[in-house]
């Protein structure tokens, strides 16, 4: 079963590096274990979010392409 998001972040219409910058800021407002849902339209956001999660060691639960050129991410704060 998919994790439930505790906070939503809309990054549609934003290009690199803003989805990553805004995700980082949004994570600051979460408690450890909570999940952020982020929606982006930046075509580079899947590889970028994978790299971001690897570097920050937060857990990328979902990285998927939706219809209409959107991308959806679920990230669990680990520390």
């Amino acid at each position, binding site marked *: 079963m998919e994790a439930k998001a505790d906070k939503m972040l809309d990054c549609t*219409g*934003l*290009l*690199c*590096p*803003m989805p*990553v*910058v805004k*995700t*980082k*800021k949004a994570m600051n407002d979460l408690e450890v274990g909570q999940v952020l849902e982020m929606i982006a*339209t*930046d075509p580079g956001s899947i590889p970028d979010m994978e*790299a*971001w999660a690897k*570097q*920050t060691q937060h857990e990328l639960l979902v990285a998927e392409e939706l219809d209409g050129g959107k991308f959806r991410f679920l990230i669990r704060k680990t520390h």
Partner: protein
Amino acid sequence: MAQENGKRRLAMIASKGTLDWAYPPFILGSAAASMDWEVAIFFTFYGLPLLRKKLDAAVSPVGNPAMPMKMPFGPKAFQKINWPIPNLLTSNLPGFESVATSLMKQTFKNKGVPSIEQLREACVDLEVRMIGCQMTMDVFGFTKEEFIDECEIGGAATFLEYAADADVTLFI
């Protein structure tokens, strides 16, 4: 490699002050800081004005022969045209640089690229260290008061001492 605090470190030199070249250090700086890296940018020579409170970075097609010349308005097919404007015109037509600058700013805005001001603000928020070059200040006659409060002033040794332990070092 990582620092004692477990963080990776990025050390950059920003040596160019045109609008196009202002982007890479601020993009990479904010992205790296968002990935929990330590970041410092050393602003030197023509890069130093990027620390001024009021930014006025412009772009010039002169010396950038591969710069796409596209219009940020009109139908899609029109926006796709790469206008074959000869160098002779771009370098001699008065006002062409300000036209090119506003076209580029509009294109970036339309596509969702943040402004240099926004990126620099993100860097400040993310505690990117910004170091202005003392020597360049003296040569071009800048004072610390002209620069944003968040920057510090230093020289080559300051940067090198920081860069010695960096994981990634870039000269831009």
